[in-house]
């Protein structure tokens, strides 16, 4: 198994940057929509993470936009 390309914290940092927030403000179970995240930005994130080798699926992330959920999906993918 290769080293994970993305960690929970890099994920948090990427999300924080795209919505213009400080990473420390975003808790694992916070609903990211409340921070102004929208579908277009989710797709932008997926695209950027894809460039780093982590292929995530919009439908999986979109249903529950929290870092905790996303990380669980990402971990599963990175484990494969």
């Amino acid at each position, binding site marked *: 198994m290769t080293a994970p390309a993305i960690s929970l914290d890099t994920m948090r940092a990427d999300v924080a940057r*795209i919505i213009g927030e400080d990473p420390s403000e975003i808790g694992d179970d916070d609903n990211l*929509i409340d921070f102004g995240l929208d579908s*277009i930005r989710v797709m*932008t994130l997926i695209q950027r993470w894809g460039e780093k080798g982590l292929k995530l699926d*919009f439908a999986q992330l*979109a249903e529950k*936009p929290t870092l905790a959920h996303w990380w669980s999906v990402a971990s599963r993918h990175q484990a494969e």
Partner: protein
Amino acid sequence: MTGRRTRRLTQAQEGLWFAQRLDPDNPILNTGQIVTLRGPLDRTAFKAAVEQALREAPALAVRFIDGPDGPEQILDDPAFACLDIIDLSAATDPLQAALDHIDRDMARPRDPLHDLLVTEELLIAGPDLHVWNQNIHHLVIDGYGTSLLNRRIAALYNETVTAVPDPDTAFASFDDLLAEDAAYQGSERETKERAYWNELFADRPQVIGIAPGEATSVHSFHRYTIDIGPEVTKAITTRARAAELAWPDLVTTIAGAFVARHTGTADTVVGVPHMGRLGSVAARVPAMVMNVLPLRMHIDEDVPLEELASSVARQLIRGRRHGRYRSEQLRRDLGLIGGERRLYGPLINIMPFDMPFRLHGIDSDLRVPGAGAVDDITFTLRADAAGETMRLELDTNPTLYTAERTRQLGHRFVAFLHAASTHEKLANTPTLSPEELHRWQTVQTSSTHPVEDTTLADLLARRAMAQPDALALIDGDRRWTYAELERETAHFASKLRLAGVKKGDVVVVALPRSWNLVVALLATVRMGAAYLPLDLTHPPDRIKRILDSAKAAAKPSVIVTTAEAKTIFPDDAPLLFVGQGNDVLRDADVAFETPAPEDAAYIIYTSGSTGMPKGVVIEHRAIVNRLLWMGTHYGIGPGDRILQKTPATFDVSVWEFFLPFITGATLVVAPPDAHKDPHALAALVREHGITTMHFVPSMLALFLDEPQTHGLAIHRVFVSGEELPADLRDRFHAFIDGELHNLYGPTEAAVDVSYWLAAPTDISRPVPIGHPVWNTRLYVLDARFRPLPSDVVGELFLAGRQLARGYLGQPDLTDERFIPDPFFAGEKMYRTGDLARVRDDEAVVFLGRTDHQVKLRGLRIELGEIEAAIVADPAVAQAVVDARDDGAGGKRLVGYLVAAPGSPIDSEALRVSVASRVPDYMVPSAFVTLDRLPLSANGKLDRKALPDPSFTSVAGRAPSTDTERRLVALFAECLHLDAATISADDDFFELGGHSLLAAKLLKRIRDQWGSALADDASGDAGRAGVVLGLGVIFTDSTVARLAARIDAALAAVGPFSVTDSEGLAQLIRLNRGDTASSLFCIHPAGGISWCYAGLARALAPEHAVFGVQARGLDADAAPPESIDAIAADYIGLIRAVQPQGPVHLAGWSVGGIIAHAMAVQLSQAGEPPGLLAMLDSYPSDSWREQTDPSEDVALKALVQIAGRDVSELGDVELTRERVMRFLRDIGNPLGMLSDAALNGVLNVVAANNRLVRQHRHGLFPGKAVYFRAALDHIGTDLSPDLWAPYIKQLEVHEVSSLHAHLTGAVATSYVAPVIAQALRQHRLTGSEN
């Protein structure tokens, strides 16, 4: 029991439900995809995968029913999932056959009540070539849902062939989605979101699209696709990433700016499709969820693009957070119902990436042929999976855009995207693509023409020398040869010289029209002075202001006037009188200098918007260009006689005065005031054989009203000074034998700068001002002086040789209006203040003044459009609309009109007819009938002289008929209002109605009148109201109009089994006129008599008009045996509604033959003779020899019945499908016919053609009024005289029309008054009996 469960539609579904029910035959809500599959496809596995995925998607398996409280969907219906496999591999071109098959499927409308809403087909085009057609109604799926479905199908297929499952593609529960939707309704979140949107749109910004017109999706759309390469894509994505922007938001911003460039407003509202999946179970449910978010953008072109895009992105983010609230609901909240009242303009749909569709071992290519309604224009941008390239799909509504315009917009948009992404600010980004800009520059040099650099003085002298004995001038009984006129000119020049005038001076000429005036002007320019004309009939105050203003800049050396007028001028003014003792002939003339090309030739004062007149100084070089162009372009020369009738203070007079004497023609001076007297003008034209003359269009309209002018031959008539209405052009050619030329130009550019031949064959509406004269450039620019694309409205700027030097003594004003030409260094351009657009043929179209735009209740209104709508009513000859203060701080529209001769104006009828052509908010609140429109001294419309209307109560009249009263009660019931507050003019939607309530209202109407509306023996409740569809509530939304529709439906008699197509009953009522004197119009060949609607409008309210339609429209009816049998049948029909009295008949074409047969039968039965009006019918004898017509002929007839020409379909074989599509595309009601009705029409055409050939006419012992289509039948033997053996007395009227247009608006304006007169006569003689 498993029990079927029914659910209300989701909010997302409701809008689409109504869209489909409003237009049941529209297939545009089929969302399709075409996937070409290359490779060894396992068909069994594929079929299993598709069917399994469908079984997993209950949202697609729902069925719809009309429940008591609105539509419902039934869940858990037995699974229907089935993929059909169709083998097309035997076809000549299997791939093409597959695509054709899919086209047909896409074009088939689905009825949500009866049809399956999912079509899955695998078309075999070869062993390793398949095309998969998936067509699902938008009511149950959206684009994102389709991607989920595709992905699931691929996963299931791949699992079968590779044994690797993909559980991530499983769907979430549709029940959960429905629960989420139900929980949202009435929730706090909904309240919050509603408040957000209502606040954002509280001011209901005016929304305009790129193209004018009503944005309601028709049955098809144009699509133009362009691949956007990696260069542009990278420029966009790189720039977005550098600014921490999501690139789709950047593209949306640029697209919004592109739209704003075309609408001419910095504030623009576009629609952004919103998938609505984030944070919702819908993220994994294939269903219809998507919404359209209205995005308000203020395009500030002066800030860096990143800054603008960031603010747009913030707006988008906020919108998406509130994105569950339906935009359809917001429209209802805001009262924006109907195609004209829009919430947003173009759609901008950016898809960052598609979910890939990959079948193992198969190379697949997925296309989306249609994804829902195209109301206006949709920009869809899809990025490829890697985000390296993009594809633009530009979909447009064909009623608003041509295919060519769509193509242009696509290329322009891609160029704009590229340019914007490389410029710091939008301000630096051109609107035109590089190719368009190049072409624009080429056009601007196209008028270049060598013109001698000389003076008017020189040209006049040369011509006088060249033809001394030719006739130069006629004034009353007096005549001058060129030599004689030259002598007079020299004498007068001597007088001026002796009075102290020299080159460069200003000579004021204040003379009534006479040969003296001509000589004074000639002499002034010959000696290098500039003339300044004054009109002695102008108010003294105005004359004084002009003199004061001129004196300040260039003290006039002399004022040439008459002794009688001297009191107008100050005592110390240097007056020089003509016609007095001091103009004694001298033996020797005094020598004088001659001017140079840059010297001033004349100074003409025009009114300024501030009320202060401005003196425009025109140099010789400028007017020489104008006159030499005109002389050459129109071939004016010796033999021509030009009428001088324009006051010298109006610059049109300049060419009248000078063109004859530089081309060798003769000038005929009209007596003073003759220019206002059509009768006198007509006499002058006849007496002198005038070949060339000018009118201001409103004066031309008066001229044509004068019967003396009819039949005049005038070689060339020029019009300018106002817009030339297209109807006036057509009237001109109906009465005058000659050319009509539309010229345009301000005084500031030497009379005219553009020209257009308004020929009889010209069908332009509006009539263009045309192309530039020599050495002249016409620029249509935006507010930043950037060239605009064709058809986009901007301000007109003029450049080139004809520009004035400026305003006399007003350098600041001169600099303001004459600004540096950004395209030709060192030159100036003149800002006209006129709105214009350029057509694709480069002709310029004038659209009014920049300062005459009216805004009422936030809606932009072009008064010209309303005027055109009023004039379209045959009772009106001329109309002007003005926005007047309503005394309460607001504005109201007032229509001023002049009635057509013999047509009394009924304001109520006019209001109805205007309301039928423009949106309600554009219907004037009051109409004022005038004897004539007030004209200013220059003959232009004088708006200030229009009287104020007396506003009577606009609260509306009380309901007056039983139907109206019952309707008021229904309105009150549906809208929960007090019936006492509802008037007959109240509009259902303005009272708070919306589409859901409209459906309720329709149901109540059907409950009330259904049984009376149709005596359908089946008693089927759904059929009882066949004559009224939901659309009626939208088109006739006031109590009065709806009541009229119900009454008309009630008047239709006789059972009729062709259902769902109203207006096919055998007898239909076409107006609400008085039944004491009814006219019955017999259908032409097609069996339908809707074509008489215009005639019916024109005859209301004096005469009721009924249309008699063929029984054969009903496919089950027995075919008629003979024309005489048809005639007897129709008499029976008529006697059912009019038991006694003379029967008045009219018939066009075959209808005339039938009407004649009816009249013969009636007279044989001893009935008193009624009116028999025949519209270009010819007896059977003329047809008997011709071969039997084919279906082709029947289809042609159908196109003609629609008032169109077959050539408009292009050079193709006529098929039923093509003709119906054409009729639908042009929005003709015939296009709405059901297949059964269409078959009926074609059968009737065939039957009529056959029966007419067998028919033998009897003799009608009365008088027939006959209208001949005078523009047709050239080279045939057809003549009304052929009726001589069958009609005792024939009164023939020649109508300047083609046969096919004889019931059109233009012809009707001639036909209707004649018929009205004849009917009146019948009534009078009838009452005497």
